[in-house]
């Protein structure tokens, strides 16, 4: 039990940052929140949330804000409590497929968690859904007066054009899984990914569609999937070589299709040390248990420091 006030920053480049602030402030009057738009604002916070939004837009806006990505990288890598929801989770991933092929350097990633994320796994908005997901763990430390009930009931997961975690590396604790069929575009990306893994190529980033051909009868077939390496590097040809050289160091096992419907068991929540990732949106779920779990993480890391 702690009675010390804490301040949690919410990255406010774009997306549902106000919803996160409202959720945190509803938990306890001891929690203060602040919006983060520039590197210097990272100084006096006890933890940070990267909210849901459009990962492509967030990545580009972050790119154009001098020093922000570097500051966030060092913040996350220093082990300070960080939570990414949906688009925020994509930013925290080390690998991402299904990124936009329009943008030269692909999706900007902050990294920090060894997971392979597939953007927009479940399809377009019409396929966005609500579904019960495994309940979050109980928080290690509670704030005084925080009433959140952790009764193990399923958590209402709101998945909006959501990404899915395909694989998690060693040391990543899996907090929830769902079984779901990939959308058409994601299925094509997965197929390509399987081929690349089989051929021994390492994938850091892979775009969806570079060019497309309209099949007769209306169907669309995707062609020319592009491969991206490190977002900070500018030379594409060199990157490709480098990627090919690295291929033996990595071992990715994709979740297989569980039955003839091509449904796969994908991961929707993970924790790596002080970094938390959820593919869904607790900020709009009217259930504060994930927020209370994250606050517990922040308090714990504060106590360790003190």
């Amino acid at each position, binding site marked *: 039990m702690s009675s010390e006030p804490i301040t949690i920053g919410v990255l*406010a*480049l*774009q*997306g*549902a*940052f*106000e*919803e996160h602030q409202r959720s945190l402030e509803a938990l306890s009057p001891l929690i203060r929140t602040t919006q983060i*738009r520039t590197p210097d604002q990272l100084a006096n916070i006890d933890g940070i949330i990267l909210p*849901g*939004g*459009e990962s*492509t*837009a967030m990545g*580009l*806006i972050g790119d*154009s*804000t001098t020093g922000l990505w570097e500051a966030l990288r060092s913040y996350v890598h220093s082990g300070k409590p960080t939570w990414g929801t*949906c*688009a925020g989770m994509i930013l925290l991933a080390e690998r991402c497929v*299904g990124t*936009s092929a*329009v*943008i*030269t350097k692909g999706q900007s990633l902050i990294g920090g968690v060894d997971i392979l994320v597939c*953007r*927009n796994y*479940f*399809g*377009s*908005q*019409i*396929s*966005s*859904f*609500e*579904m*019960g997901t495994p309940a979050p763990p109980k928080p290690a430390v509670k704030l005084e007066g925080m009433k959140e009930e952790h009764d193990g009931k399923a958590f209402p997961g*709101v*998945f*909006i*054009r959501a990404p899915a975690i395909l694989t998690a590396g060693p040391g990543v604790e899996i907090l929830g899984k*769902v*079984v*779901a*069929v*990939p*959308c058409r575009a994601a299925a094509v990306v997965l197929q390509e990914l399987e081929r690349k893994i089989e051929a021994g190529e390492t994938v850091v980033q892979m775009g*969806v*569609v570079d060019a*497309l051909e309209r099949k007769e009868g209306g169907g*669309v077939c*995707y062609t020319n999937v592009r491969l991206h390496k490190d977002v900070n590097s500018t030379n594409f040809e060199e990157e490709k070589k480098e990627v090919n050289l690295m291929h033996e160091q990595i071992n990715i096992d994709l979740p297989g299709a*569980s*039955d003839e*419907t091509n*449904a796969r068991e994908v991961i929707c929540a993970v924790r790596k040390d002080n970094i938390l990732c959820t593919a869904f*949106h607790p900020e*709009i*779920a009217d259930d504060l248990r994930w927020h209370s779990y994250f606050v517990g993480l922040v308090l714990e890391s504060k106590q360790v420091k003190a």
Partner: protein
Amino acid sequence: MAGTNGANGSNGSNGATIGTTKVKQGLAQMLKGGVIMDVMNVEQAKIAEAAGAVAVMALERIPADIRRDGGVARMSDPAMILEIKNAVTIPVMAKARIGHFVEAQILEACEIDYIDESEVLTMADEVNHIDKTQFNVPFVCGCRNIGEALRRCAEGAAMLRTKGEAGTGNIVEAVRHARTVQSDIKRLSCMTKDELFVAAKNLQAPYELVKYVADNGRLPVVNFAAGGVATPADAALMMQLGMDGVFVGSGIFKSANPEARAKAIVKAVTHYKDPKILMECSTGLGPAMVGISDIRGDPVNFRDREGGESNPDGVPPKKVLHGATETKLYGSSWN
């Protein structure tokens, strides 16, 4: 067995439910603080995505062209919508005519991410809007004041935007509508419960929604600015007036340097409270769209197309209008 989810459009045995209010309103919440751009082809869509747009609105003619060319403005060809949808990974929106629920059904079949039931297209029904609760795909609708906003919410709109006056490059109407909605909210917030019943009557909006606004001090759904945004300063102005994000229609691709302007407007919306950054992103963009300064004198009026607004004293007088997109109009924000 497990194995079905929303992606199949089914309510699978694993308990996934698609098309819920939360999911529909949720996407709009994810677009907050972002810029949605009108695009007419794949090239423009790619420019928009690369500039940091959170979504694109696919349409055959942008509002400025509809104003100029006239004729009946309808839903775009699904072929161009699908082409754009396949070219970018951000959400794609498209417009249907007010009341034209079959256009909306077609757009839903295109798996479009959001439908704009838009006054910029010619009205298909001068009385009824689309019953948006019947769709799994969410709708955005325009509003000039809180009554109109809540009427659209009651019909199932999951997102709102100011109407402004599209295709003019003139922010004055958007400012009027944003200010009107914001002051309406403030007024409701300090009313007592008995006053709210009358307020609901006067606003011609459902009492439950009026009460929600009074209790929470905000609209039940996200509200973006639209209709006349042409510069980064315009966009930041609308954000400072309390809007959740910005639609830019003709402002980008009718300007001299769409790429630079698109990027600048995105940056201005993120850093809308920082005049230093706003100065940087307003610098050296080349000429903005020429636009229309005398909106009142312009023969085209998109903003007053609502339908269904009845005059308690009887049939409202038909406005005498001339010009290419003449339509029967009820009540004007000028009166």
